[in-house]
Protein backbone atom coordinates (compact mmCIF):
# COMPACT_ATOMS: atom_id res chain seq x y z
CA UNK A 1 0.00 0.00 0.00
CA UNK A 2 2.66 2.49 1.08
CA UNK A 3 6.07 1.72 -0.42
CA UNK A 4 9.29 3.55 0.43
CA UNK A 5 12.14 3.64 -2.07
CA UNK A 6 15.49 4.77 -0.62
CA UNK A 7 13.71 7.46 1.37
CA UNK A 8 16.03 9.87 3.17
CA UNK A 9 14.39 12.43 5.35
CA UNK A 10 15.41 14.97 7.92
CA UNK A 11 15.15 18.39 9.46
CA UNK A 12 17.52 21.10 8.29
CA UNK A 13 20.99 19.52 8.39
CA UNK A 14 19.90 16.61 10.53
CA UNK A 15 19.15 13.33 8.81
CA UNK A 16 16.54 11.37 10.71
CA UNK A 17 15.84 8.48 8.36
CA UNK A 18 18.34 7.22 5.83
CA UNK A 19 17.64 5.18 2.71
CA UNK A 20 14.49 3.51 3.92
CA UNK A 21 13.14 0.90 1.54
CA UNK A 22 10.16 -1.14 2.57
CA UNK A 23 6.44 -1.47 2.57
CA UNK A 24 3.44 -0.96 4.83
CA UNK A 25 0.53 -3.23 3.92
CA UNK A 26 -3.14 -2.47 3.40
CA UNK A 27 -5.89 -4.08 5.47
CA UNK A 28 -3.62 -3.92 8.47
CA UNK A 29 -2.93 -1.77 11.49
CA UNK A 30 0.69 -0.66 11.74
CA UNK A 31 2.23 1.06 14.77
CA UNK A 32 5.09 3.47 14.24
CA UNK A 33 7.32 3.44 17.30
CA UNK A 34 10.60 5.08 18.17
CA UNK A 35 12.27 7.29 20.74
CA UNK A 36 11.45 11.00 21.05
CA UNK A 37 12.75 13.12 18.19
CA UNK A 38 13.61 10.23 15.87
CA UNK A 39 11.21 11.30 13.15
CA UNK A 40 7.87 9.62 13.73
CA UNK A 41 5.84 12.76 12.98
CA UNK A 42 8.22 13.78 10.21
CA UNK A 43 7.73 10.44 8.47
CA UNK A 44 3.94 10.58 8.83
CA UNK A 45 3.83 14.14 7.52
CA UNK A 46 6.01 13.18 4.57
CA UNK A 47 3.60 10.35 3.67
CA UNK A 48 0.68 12.78 4.00
CA UNK A 49 2.43 15.13 1.58
CA UNK A 50 2.73 18.06 4.00
CA UNK A 51 6.24 17.56 5.32
CA UNK A 52 9.75 18.77 4.60
CA UNK A 53 11.37 18.02 1.26
CA UNK A 54 13.05 14.61 1.13
CA UNK A 55 14.97 12.43 -1.27
CA UNK A 56 13.83 9.05 -2.52
CA UNK A 57 10.25 8.11 -3.22
CA UNK A 58 7.07 7.43 -1.33
CA UNK A 59 4.73 5.38 -3.51
CA UNK A 60 1.03 5.00 -2.80
CA UNK A 61 -0.68 2.23 -4.73
CA UNK A 62 2.06 2.46 -7.34
CA UNK A 63 2.06 6.24 -7.67
CA UNK A 64 4.75 8.65 -6.46
CA UNK A 65 3.07 11.08 -4.04
CA UNK A 66 5.15 13.96 -5.35
CA UNK A 67 3.45 13.62 -8.71
CA UNK A 68 -0.03 13.51 -7.15
CA UNK A 69 -2.19 16.63 -6.99
CA UNK A 70 -3.49 17.80 -3.59
CA UNK A 71 -6.95 16.78 -4.78
CA UNK A 72 -6.04 13.18 -5.63
CA UNK A 73 -3.87 12.92 -2.51
CA UNK A 74 -6.89 13.98 -0.45
CA UNK A 75 -8.90 11.01 -1.73
CA UNK A 76 -6.02 8.60 -0.99
CA UNK A 77 -4.74 9.65 2.43
CA UNK A 78 -6.43 11.16 5.44
CA UNK A 79 -4.45 12.39 8.42
CA UNK A 80 -5.31 12.85 12.08
CA UNK A 81 -2.81 15.34 13.46
CA UNK A 82 -1.91 16.22 17.04
CA UNK A 83 -3.60 19.63 16.62
CA UNK A 84 -6.41 20.09 19.09
CA UNK A 85 -9.61 21.16 17.42
CA UNK A 86 -11.86 22.74 20.01
CA UNK A 87 -13.80 25.43 18.25
CA UNK A 88 -16.85 26.90 19.95
CA UNK A 89 -20.03 26.60 17.88
CA UNK A 90 -18.49 23.88 15.72
CA UNK A 91 -20.61 20.75 16.13
CA UNK A 92 -19.08 17.28 15.83
CA UNK A 93 -21.23 16.60 12.79
CA UNK A 94 -19.81 19.70 11.07
CA UNK A 95 -16.25 18.57 11.79
CA UNK A 96 -16.92 15.11 10.35
CA UNK A 97 -18.71 16.72 7.39
CA UNK A 98 -15.52 18.64 6.56
CA UNK A 99 -14.03 15.25 5.72
CA UNK A 100 -16.30 15.25 2.69
CA UNK A 101 -14.54 18.36 1.33
CA UNK A 102 -12.67 16.49 -1.45
CA UNK A 103 -16.03 15.36 -2.86
CA UNK A 104 -18.27 18.42 -2.40
CA UNK A 105 -18.68 21.42 -4.71
CA UNK A 106 -17.06 24.88 -4.43
CA UNK A 107 -19.15 25.96 -1.46
CA UNK A 108 -19.20 22.54 0.21
CA UNK A 109 -22.83 21.61 -0.33
CA UNK A 110 -23.65 18.23 1.22
CA UNK A 111 -25.72 15.76 -0.80
CA UNK A 112 -27.86 13.00 0.73
CA UNK A 113 -25.02 10.51 0.13
CA UNK A 114 -22.53 12.76 1.94
CA UNK A 115 -24.84 13.03 4.93
CA UNK A 116 -25.27 9.27 5.00
CA UNK A 117 -21.48 8.77 4.96
CA UNK A 118 -21.07 11.29 7.81
CA UNK A 119 -23.67 9.45 9.90
CA UNK A 120 -21.99 6.12 9.21
CA UNK A 121 -18.59 7.53 10.15
CA UNK A 122 -19.99 8.83 13.45
CA UNK A 123 -21.63 5.47 14.09
CA UNK A 124 -18.50 3.44 13.41
CA UNK A 125 -16.55 5.37 16.08
CA UNK A 126 -19.53 5.09 18.45
CA UNK A 127 -20.21 8.84 18.54
CA UNK A 128 -23.67 9.08 16.97
CA UNK A 129 -25.11 10.49 20.18
CA UNK A 130 -22.56 13.30 20.15
CA UNK A 131 -23.32 14.55 16.63
CA UNK A 132 -24.93 17.79 17.75
CA UNK A 133 -22.53 18.54 20.60
CA UNK A 134 -19.80 21.09 20.10
CA UNK A 135 -16.26 19.88 20.60
CA UNK A 136 -15.40 22.33 23.37
CA UNK A 137 -17.79 20.34 25.60
CA UNK A 138 -16.13 16.98 24.96
CA UNK A 139 -13.28 15.03 26.53
CA UNK A 140 -9.96 14.34 24.78
CA UNK A 141 -11.00 10.76 24.01
CA UNK A 142 -14.30 11.89 22.50
CA UNK A 143 -12.59 14.56 20.39
CA UNK A 144 -10.08 12.02 19.13
CA UNK A 145 -12.92 9.76 18.01
CA UNK A 146 -14.56 12.63 16.16
CA UNK A 147 -11.32 13.39 14.35
CA UNK A 148 -11.09 9.71 13.36
CA UNK A 149 -14.70 9.85 12.12
CA UNK A 150 -13.68 12.86 10.02
CA UNK A 151 -10.87 10.81 8.50
CA UNK A 152 -13.31 7.95 7.81
CA UNK A 153 -15.74 10.32 6.10
CA UNK A 154 -12.90 11.26 3.76
CA UNK A 155 -13.12 7.64 2.50
CA UNK A 156 -9.44 7.13 1.86
CA UNK A 157 -7.72 3.74 1.62
CA UNK A 158 -4.94 5.06 3.89
CA UNK A 159 -5.39 6.72 7.31
CA UNK A 160 -2.44 8.16 9.21
CA UNK A 161 -2.65 9.20 12.87
CA UNK A 162 -0.01 11.11 14.80
CA UNK A 163 0.00 9.95 18.43
CA UNK A 164 -3.75 9.45 18.70
CA UNK A 165 -3.43 7.96 22.19
CA UNK A 166 -1.26 10.70 23.67
CA UNK A 167 -3.81 12.38 25.94
CA UNK A 168 -5.99 9.37 26.66
CA UNK A 169 -6.30 7.30 29.81
CA UNK A 170 -5.62 3.57 29.79
CA UNK A 171 -9.10 2.20 28.90
CA UNK A 172 -9.47 4.87 26.21
CA UNK A 173 -6.10 3.95 24.69
CA UNK A 174 -7.04 0.31 24.34
CA UNK A 175 -10.51 1.14 23.06
CA UNK A 176 -9.15 3.53 20.47
CA UNK A 177 -6.55 1.06 19.21
CA UNK A 178 -9.10 -1.77 19.06
CA UNK A 179 -11.30 0.57 17.04
CA UNK A 180 -8.42 1.26 14.63
CA UNK A 181 -7.70 -2.46 14.37
CA UNK A 182 -11.33 -3.21 13.62
CA UNK A 183 -11.46 -0.48 10.94
CA UNK A 184 -8.28 -1.77 9.32
CA UNK A 185 -9.60 -5.32 9.09
CA UNK A 186 -13.33 -4.77 8.46
CA UNK A 187 -12.98 -1.93 5.99
CA UNK A 188 -9.66 -3.11 4.60
CA UNK A 189 -7.84 0.14 5.26
CA UNK A 190 -4.15 0.77 5.66
CA UNK A 191 -3.92 2.47 9.08
CA UNK A 192 -0.62 3.74 10.46
CA UNK A 193 -0.29 5.48 13.81
CA UNK A 194 2.66 6.70 15.79
CA UNK A 195 2.72 5.88 19.47
CA UNK A 196 4.84 5.53 22.59
CA UNK A 197 2.67 2.71 23.93
CA UNK A 198 4.86 -0.28 23.16
CA UNK A 199 2.55 -2.75 24.92
CA UNK A 200 -0.50 -1.63 22.95
CA UNK A 201 1.46 -1.69 19.71
CA UNK A 202 2.64 -5.26 20.30
CA UNK A 203 -0.73 -6.49 21.43
CA UNK A 204 -3.12 -4.95 18.91
CA UNK A 205 -1.15 -4.16 15.77
CA UNK A 206 -0.52 -6.41 12.80
CA UNK A 207 2.84 -4.83 12.04
CA UNK A 208 5.32 -2.53 13.71
CA UNK A 209 7.52 0.05 12.06
CA UNK A 210 10.38 0.79 14.42
CA UNK A 211 12.65 3.77 13.94
CA UNK A 212 16.20 2.93 15.03
CA UNK A 213 17.94 6.03 13.73
CA UNK A 214 18.72 6.28 10.91
CA UNK A 215 17.10 2.97 9.98
CA UNK A 216 13.47 1.94 9.99
CA UNK A 217 12.52 -1.71 10.47
CA UNK A 218 9.07 -2.69 9.26
CA UNK A 219 8.06 -6.21 10.35
CA UNK A 220 4.96 -8.17 11.31
CA UNK A 221 4.50 -7.88 15.07
CA UNK A 222 5.63 -11.41 15.97
CA UNK A 223 8.77 -11.15 13.88
CA UNK A 224 9.46 -7.74 15.38
CA UNK A 225 9.33 -9.20 18.88
CA UNK A 226 11.76 -11.97 17.97
CA UNK A 227 14.06 -9.72 15.96
CA UNK A 228 15.79 -8.11 18.91
CA UNK A 229 15.30 -4.58 17.52
CA UNK A 230 13.04 -3.64 20.42
CA UNK A 231 15.58 -4.66 23.10
CA UNK A 232 18.32 -2.77 21.32
CA UNK A 233 16.24 0.38 21.02
CA UNK A 234 14.42 0.57 24.31
CA UNK A 235 16.69 -1.14 26.79
CA UNK A 236 18.73 1.16 28.95
CA UNK A 237 20.55 1.03 32.26
CA UNK A 238 17.24 1.14 34.04
CA UNK A 239 14.79 -0.89 31.97
CA UNK A 240 14.85 -4.00 29.82
CA UNK A 241 12.44 -5.58 27.34
CA UNK A 242 11.43 -9.21 27.71
CA UNK A 243 10.34 -10.76 24.38
CA UNK A 244 8.71 -13.73 26.08
CA UNK A 245 6.24 -11.65 28.07
CA UNK A 246 6.28 -8.70 25.62
CA UNK A 247 6.73 -6.35 28.54
CA UNK A 248 9.19 -3.79 29.80
CA UNK A 249 10.66 -4.31 33.26
CA UNK A 250 12.74 -2.20 35.59
CA UNK A 251 16.10 -3.86 36.08
CA UNK A 252 17.13 -5.35 39.43
CA UNK A 253 13.65 -5.89 40.75
Amino acid at each position, binding site marked *: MIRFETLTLGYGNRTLIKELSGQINGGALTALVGRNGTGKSTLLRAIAGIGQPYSGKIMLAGQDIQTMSPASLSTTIS*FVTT*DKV*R*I*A*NLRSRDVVA*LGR*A*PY*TNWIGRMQALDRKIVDEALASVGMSDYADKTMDQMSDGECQRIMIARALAQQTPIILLDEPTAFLDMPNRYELCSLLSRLAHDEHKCIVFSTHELDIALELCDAVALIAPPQVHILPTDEMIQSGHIERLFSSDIISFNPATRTVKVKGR
Partner: protein
Amino acid sequence: MSKRNTILFWILAIGILLLFAIDMGVGSVDITPSDIWATLFGNASDQIKSKIIIDIRLTKAIVAILAGAALSVSGLQMQTLFRNPLAGPYVLGVSSGASLGVAIFILGAPLLGLGGKSLLSSIGVAGAAWIGAASILAMVASVSRRIKDIMVILILGMMVSSAVSAIVQVLQYMSHEEALKSFIVWTMGSLGDVTLSQLWLVAAAVIAGLVISISVIKPLNLLLLGEAYAHTMGLNIERTRMLILLSTTLLAGTITAFCGPIGFIGLAIPHVARILFHDADHRTLMPAAAMTGAVALLICDIISKMLILPINTITALLGIPIVIWVVIRQKNIV
Protein backbone atom coordinates in the same frame (compact mmCIF):
# COMPACT_ATOMS: atom_id res chain seq x y z
CA MET B 1 -29.88 26.52 8.18
CA SER B 2 -31.85 26.56 11.41
CA LYS B 3 -35.13 28.45 11.63
CA ARG B 4 -33.64 30.67 14.31
CA ASN B 5 -30.84 31.83 12.00
CA THR B 6 -33.23 32.47 9.13
CA ILE B 7 -35.24 34.75 11.43
CA LEU B 8 -32.03 36.49 12.52
CA PHE B 9 -31.10 37.20 8.90
CA TRP B 10 -34.52 38.76 8.34
CA ILE B 11 -34.17 40.88 11.49
CA LEU B 12 -30.76 42.11 10.31
CA ALA B 13 -32.10 42.90 6.83
CA ILE B 14 -35.00 44.91 8.26
CA GLY B 15 -32.58 46.54 10.72
CA ILE B 16 -30.36 47.70 7.86
CA LEU B 17 -33.32 49.25 6.02
CA LEU B 18 -34.63 50.99 9.14
CA LEU B 19 -31.24 52.30 10.23
CA PHE B 20 -30.52 53.40 6.66
CA ALA B 21 -33.69 55.49 6.73
CA ILE B 22 -32.88 56.91 10.18
CA ASP B 23 -29.30 57.66 9.09
CA MET B 24 -30.67 59.65 6.12
CA GLY B 25 -32.77 61.73 8.50
CA VAL B 26 -30.07 62.60 11.04
CA GLY B 27 -27.72 65.52 10.51
CA SER B 28 -27.07 69.19 11.12
CA VAL B 29 -29.76 70.27 8.68
CA ASP B 30 -33.35 69.30 9.49
CA ILE B 31 -34.62 66.99 6.79
CA THR B 32 -38.00 65.32 6.99
CA PRO B 33 -38.86 61.89 5.58
CA SER B 34 -41.05 63.62 3.01
CA ASP B 35 -38.07 65.68 1.77
CA ILE B 36 -36.11 62.43 1.29
CA TRP B 37 -39.06 60.81 -0.46
CA ALA B 38 -39.51 63.79 -2.78
CA THR B 39 -35.80 63.93 -3.67
CA LEU B 40 -35.43 60.21 -4.34
CA PHE B 41 -38.51 60.13 -6.54
CA GLY B 42 -37.69 63.22 -8.52
CA ASN B 43 -40.13 65.94 -7.46
CA ALA B 44 -38.07 67.93 -4.99
CA SER B 45 -38.83 71.60 -4.54
CA ASP B 46 -35.75 72.62 -2.50
CA GLN B 47 -32.55 72.32 -4.56
CA ILE B 48 -30.20 72.72 -1.56
CA LYS B 49 -31.97 70.12 0.49
CA SER B 50 -32.01 67.62 -2.34
CA LYS B 51 -28.28 68.19 -2.91
CA ILE B 52 -27.63 67.48 0.77
CA ILE B 53 -29.78 64.37 0.60
CA ILE B 54 -28.09 62.86 -2.46
CA ASP B 55 -24.49 64.08 -2.16
CA ILE B 56 -24.09 63.86 1.59
CA ARG B 57 -26.72 61.82 3.39
CA LEU B 58 -27.34 59.09 0.81
CA THR B 59 -23.67 58.71 -0.11
CA LYS B 60 -22.65 58.56 3.53
CA ALA B 61 -25.28 55.98 4.46
CA ILE B 62 -24.24 53.76 1.54
CA VAL B 63 -20.58 54.15 2.54
CA ALA B 64 -21.51 53.14 6.11
CA ILE B 65 -23.08 49.91 4.83
CA LEU B 66 -20.18 49.16 2.49
CA ALA B 67 -17.56 49.93 5.16
CA GLY B 68 -19.33 47.90 7.84
CA ALA B 69 -19.67 44.87 5.58
CA ALA B 70 -16.14 45.17 4.14
CA LEU B 71 -14.32 45.55 7.48
CA SER B 72 -16.31 42.78 9.18
CA VAL B 73 -15.84 40.26 6.37
CA SER B 74 -12.11 40.93 6.14
CA GLY B 75 -11.84 40.63 9.94
CA LEU B 76 -13.65 37.28 9.84
CA GLN B 77 -11.25 35.98 7.19
CA MET B 78 -8.21 37.14 9.15
CA GLN B 79 -9.45 35.50 12.36
CA THR B 80 -9.94 32.17 10.62
CA LEU B 81 -6.74 32.36 8.57
CA PHE B 82 -4.61 33.15 11.64
CA ARG B 83 -6.75 31.03 13.98
CA ASN B 84 -6.62 33.98 16.32
CA PRO B 85 -9.73 35.62 17.78
CA LEU B 86 -7.86 38.92 18.13
CA ALA B 87 -6.91 39.22 14.49
CA GLY B 88 -8.60 41.94 12.50
CA PRO B 89 -8.33 43.47 9.05
CA TYR B 90 -5.39 45.55 10.22
CA VAL B 91 -3.12 42.80 11.56
CA LEU B 92 -1.16 42.48 8.35
CA GLY B 93 -0.41 46.18 8.22
CA VAL B 94 -3.27 47.48 6.07
CA SER B 95 -3.89 50.48 8.29
CA SER B 96 -0.23 51.18 8.94
CA GLY B 97 0.48 50.94 5.22
CA ALA B 98 -2.35 53.33 4.53
CA SER B 99 -1.21 55.75 7.22
CA LEU B 100 2.33 55.63 5.84
CA GLY B 101 0.95 56.56 2.42
CA VAL B 102 -1.09 59.40 3.87
CA ALA B 103 1.74 60.57 6.12
CA ILE B 104 4.14 60.75 3.19
CA PHE B 105 1.48 62.57 1.19
CA ILE B 106 0.34 65.08 3.82
CA LEU B 107 3.46 65.42 5.98
CA GLY B 108 6.38 64.29 3.86
CA ALA B 109 5.65 66.12 0.62
CA PRO B 110 5.63 69.63 2.16
CA LEU B 111 8.89 68.82 3.94
CA LEU B 112 10.50 68.00 0.63
CA GLY B 113 9.10 71.18 -0.88
CA LEU B 114 6.65 69.25 -3.02
CA GLY B 115 2.97 69.84 -2.74
CA GLY B 116 0.67 72.44 -4.10
CA LYS B 117 0.18 71.56 -7.72
CA SER B 118 2.77 68.82 -7.99
CA LEU B 119 2.12 65.37 -9.42
CA LEU B 120 1.80 64.05 -5.89
CA SER B 121 -1.23 66.10 -4.95
CA SER B 122 -3.24 64.78 -7.87
CA ILE B 123 -3.18 61.31 -6.31
CA GLY B 124 -5.19 62.57 -3.37
CA VAL B 125 -5.22 61.31 0.19
CA ALA B 126 -7.25 58.25 -0.75
CA GLY B 127 -4.87 57.31 -3.56
CA ALA B 128 -1.87 57.69 -1.26
CA ALA B 129 -3.52 55.52 1.39
CA TRP B 130 -4.44 52.87 -1.14
CA ILE B 131 -0.92 52.71 -2.56
CA GLY B 132 0.49 52.50 0.97
CA ALA B 133 -1.87 49.73 2.05
CA ALA B 134 -1.45 47.72 -1.15
CA SER B 135 2.34 47.91 -1.08
CA ILE B 136 2.61 46.77 2.55
CA LEU B 137 0.20 43.91 1.83
CA ALA B 138 2.08 42.97 -1.35
CA MET B 139 5.25 42.83 0.73
CA VAL B 140 3.64 40.60 3.36
CA ALA B 141 2.11 38.45 0.61
CA SER B 142 5.43 37.94 -1.14
CA VAL B 143 7.01 36.88 2.15
CA SER B 144 4.08 34.58 2.92
CA ARG B 145 4.75 32.63 -0.27
CA ARG B 146 8.10 31.54 1.10
CA ILE B 147 7.18 31.15 4.76
CA LYS B 148 5.04 28.19 5.71
CA ASP B 149 4.24 29.20 9.28
CA ILE B 150 1.27 31.53 9.46
CA MET B 151 2.25 32.83 12.91
CA VAL B 152 5.55 34.11 11.51
CA ILE B 153 3.57 36.12 8.98
CA LEU B 154 1.38 37.53 11.74
CA ILE B 155 4.45 38.61 13.71
CA LEU B 156 6.02 40.09 10.56
CA GLY B 157 2.84 42.07 9.95
CA MET B 158 2.99 43.43 13.48
CA MET B 159 6.68 44.33 13.19
CA VAL B 160 6.11 46.09 9.87
CA SER B 161 3.26 48.02 11.50
CA SER B 162 5.50 49.12 14.37
CA ALA B 163 8.29 50.15 12.00
CA VAL B 164 5.84 52.10 9.90
CA SER B 165 4.32 53.92 12.88
CA ALA B 166 7.84 54.88 13.97
CA ILE B 167 8.45 56.41 10.54
CA VAL B 168 5.09 58.17 10.71
CA GLN B 169 6.01 59.60 14.12
CA VAL B 170 9.26 60.94 12.74
CA LEU B 171 7.33 62.65 9.97
CA GLN B 172 4.82 64.03 12.49
CA TYR B 173 7.60 65.37 14.68
CA MET B 174 9.15 67.23 11.81
CA SER B 175 5.96 68.60 10.34
CA HIS B 176 4.18 71.92 10.56
CA GLU B 177 1.00 72.38 12.56
CA GLU B 178 -1.20 72.72 9.50
CA ALA B 179 -0.09 69.49 7.85
CA LEU B 180 -0.09 67.70 11.20
CA LYS B 181 -3.69 68.67 11.81
CA SER B 182 -4.93 67.36 8.48
CA PHE B 183 -3.08 64.08 9.11
CA ILE B 184 -4.62 63.69 12.58
CA VAL B 185 -8.07 64.38 11.14
CA TRP B 186 -7.54 61.56 8.60
CA THR B 187 -6.56 59.14 11.38
CA MET B 188 -9.85 59.89 13.14
CA GLY B 189 -11.73 58.45 10.21
CA SER B 190 -14.76 59.80 8.41
CA LEU B 191 -17.47 58.19 6.33
CA GLY B 192 -18.34 61.55 4.83
CA ASP B 193 -15.21 62.20 2.76
CA VAL B 194 -16.34 59.97 -0.08
CA THR B 195 -17.82 61.97 -2.94
CA LEU B 196 -20.62 60.69 -5.11
CA SER B 197 -18.21 60.02 -7.98
CA GLN B 198 -15.78 58.16 -5.69
CA LEU B 199 -18.66 56.07 -4.35
CA TRP B 200 -18.71 54.00 -7.55
CA LEU B 201 -15.06 53.19 -7.13
CA VAL B 202 -15.49 52.22 -3.46
CA ALA B 203 -18.56 50.13 -4.23
CA ALA B 204 -16.86 48.33 -7.12
CA ALA B 205 -13.77 47.50 -5.02
CA VAL B 206 -15.84 46.33 -2.05
CA ILE B 207 -18.08 44.16 -4.22
CA ALA B 208 -15.03 42.62 -5.92
CA GLY B 209 -13.56 41.93 -2.46
CA LEU B 210 -16.80 40.35 -1.27
CA VAL B 211 -17.00 38.12 -4.36
CA ILE B 212 -13.49 36.82 -3.64
CA SER B 213 -14.49 36.27 0.01
CA ILE B 214 -17.46 34.18 -1.10
CA SER B 215 -15.15 32.08 -3.27
CA VAL B 216 -13.03 31.20 -0.21
CA ILE B 217 -15.93 30.15 2.06
CA LYS B 218 -15.16 26.44 1.73
CA PRO B 219 -11.37 26.93 2.18
CA LEU B 220 -12.09 29.02 5.32
CA ASN B 221 -14.22 26.20 6.73
CA LEU B 222 -11.36 23.77 6.13
CA LEU B 223 -8.88 26.18 7.74
CA LEU B 224 -10.93 26.02 10.97
CA LEU B 225 -9.15 22.69 11.60
CA GLY B 226 -5.73 24.20 10.89
CA GLU B 227 -3.48 24.21 7.84
CA ALA B 228 -2.30 20.60 8.15
CA TYR B 229 -5.85 19.28 8.08
CA ALA B 230 -6.87 21.70 5.34
CA HIS B 231 -3.94 20.58 3.21
CA THR B 232 -4.70 16.87 3.59
CA MET B 233 -8.29 17.59 2.57
CA GLY B 234 -6.99 18.86 -0.75
CA LEU B 235 -6.81 22.60 -0.10
CA ASN B 236 -4.22 24.65 -1.96
CA ILE B 237 -3.00 26.71 1.01
CA GLU B 238 -0.83 29.21 -0.88
CA ARG B 239 -3.57 30.03 -3.35
CA THR B 240 -6.12 30.46 -0.55
CA ARG B 241 -3.80 32.76 1.37
CA MET B 242 -3.22 34.92 -1.70
CA LEU B 243 -6.97 35.18 -2.35
CA ILE B 244 -7.62 36.17 1.27
CA LEU B 245 -4.85 38.79 1.16
CA LEU B 246 -6.21 40.14 -2.12
CA SER B 247 -9.72 40.44 -0.76
CA THR B 248 -8.39 42.14 2.40
CA THR B 249 -6.62 44.71 0.24
CA LEU B 250 -9.79 45.35 -1.72
CA LEU B 251 -12.05 45.45 1.36
CA ALA B 252 -10.10 46.93 4.25
CA GLY B 253 -7.56 48.70 2.01
CA THR B 254 -10.23 50.58 0.06
CA ILE B 255 -12.28 51.54 3.11
CA THR B 256 -9.17 52.72 4.96
CA ALA B 257 -8.06 54.71 1.95
CA PHE B 258 -11.34 56.60 1.64
CA CYS B 259 -12.60 56.70 5.23
CA GLY B 260 -9.44 56.49 7.33
CA PRO B 261 -8.54 53.67 9.69
CA ILE B 262 -11.90 52.76 11.29
CA GLY B 263 -11.01 50.72 14.33
CA PHE B 264 -12.57 47.74 16.09
CA ILE B 265 -15.37 47.00 13.61
CA GLY B 266 -13.36 44.31 11.81
CA LEU B 267 -12.17 42.86 15.10
CA ALA B 268 -15.41 42.91 17.11
CA ILE B 269 -18.20 42.28 14.58
CA PRO B 270 -17.24 38.71 13.60
CA HIS B 271 -17.53 37.84 17.31
CA VAL B 272 -20.95 39.46 17.52
CA ALA B 273 -22.01 37.41 14.48
CA ARG B 274 -20.74 34.19 16.11
CA ILE B 275 -22.62 34.96 19.31
CA LEU B 276 -25.83 35.82 17.47
CA PHE B 277 -25.81 32.89 15.07
CA HIS B 278 -24.19 30.13 17.22
CA ASP B 279 -22.35 28.86 14.18
CA ALA B 280 -18.80 28.38 12.93
CA ASP B 281 -19.70 27.62 9.31
CA HIS B 282 -18.61 30.48 7.05
CA ARG B 283 -21.61 29.90 4.80
CA THR B 284 -23.61 31.41 7.68
CA LEU B 285 -20.94 33.53 9.35
CA MET B 286 -19.87 35.47 6.28
CA PRO B 287 -23.27 36.97 5.37
CA ALA B 288 -23.97 37.31 9.10
CA ALA B 289 -20.76 39.31 9.66
CA ALA B 290 -21.41 41.49 6.59
CA MET B 291 -24.95 42.35 7.69
CA THR B 292 -24.06 42.82 11.38
CA GLY B 293 -21.19 45.08 10.28
CA ALA B 294 -23.53 47.18 8.17
CA VAL B 295 -25.95 47.53 11.10
CA ALA B 296 -23.12 48.41 13.48
CA LEU B 297 -21.60 51.09 11.29
CA LEU B 298 -24.99 52.66 10.55
CA ILE B 299 -25.60 52.87 14.32
CA CYS B 300 -22.11 54.35 14.84
CA ASP B 301 -22.73 56.89 12.08
CA ILE B 302 -26.08 57.93 13.57
CA ILE B 303 -24.50 58.36 17.02
CA SER B 304 -21.50 60.23 15.62
CA LYS B 305 -23.80 62.64 13.78
CA MET B 306 -25.98 63.24 16.84
CA LEU B 307 -23.01 63.86 19.14
CA ILE B 308 -20.86 65.47 16.41
CA LEU B 309 -17.88 63.23 17.16
CA PRO B 310 -15.45 61.47 14.80
CA ILE B 311 -16.65 57.98 13.77
CA ASN B 312 -13.48 56.33 15.08
CA THR B 313 -14.21 57.36 18.68
CA ILE B 314 -17.67 55.79 18.46
CA THR B 315 -16.49 52.51 16.89
CA ALA B 316 -13.80 52.27 19.57
CA LEU B 317 -16.17 52.94 22.47
CA LEU B 318 -18.68 50.40 21.16
CA GLY B 319 -16.11 47.86 19.96
CA ILE B 320 -13.69 47.75 22.89
CA PRO B 321 -16.19 46.31 25.44
CA ILE B 322 -16.94 43.49 22.99
CA VAL B 323 -13.24 42.75 22.51
CA ILE B 324 -12.61 42.78 26.28
CA TRP B 325 -15.54 40.43 26.75
CA VAL B 326 -14.11 38.06 24.12
CA VAL B 327 -10.70 38.06 25.81
CA ILE B 328 -12.13 37.38 29.26
CA ARG B 329 -14.47 34.69 28.01
CA GLN B 330 -11.65 33.31 25.83
CA LYS B 331 -12.91 30.08 24.46
CA ASN B 332 -11.42 28.71 21.28
CA ILE B 333 -13.53 30.64 18.88
CA VAL B 334 -11.52 30.19 15.74
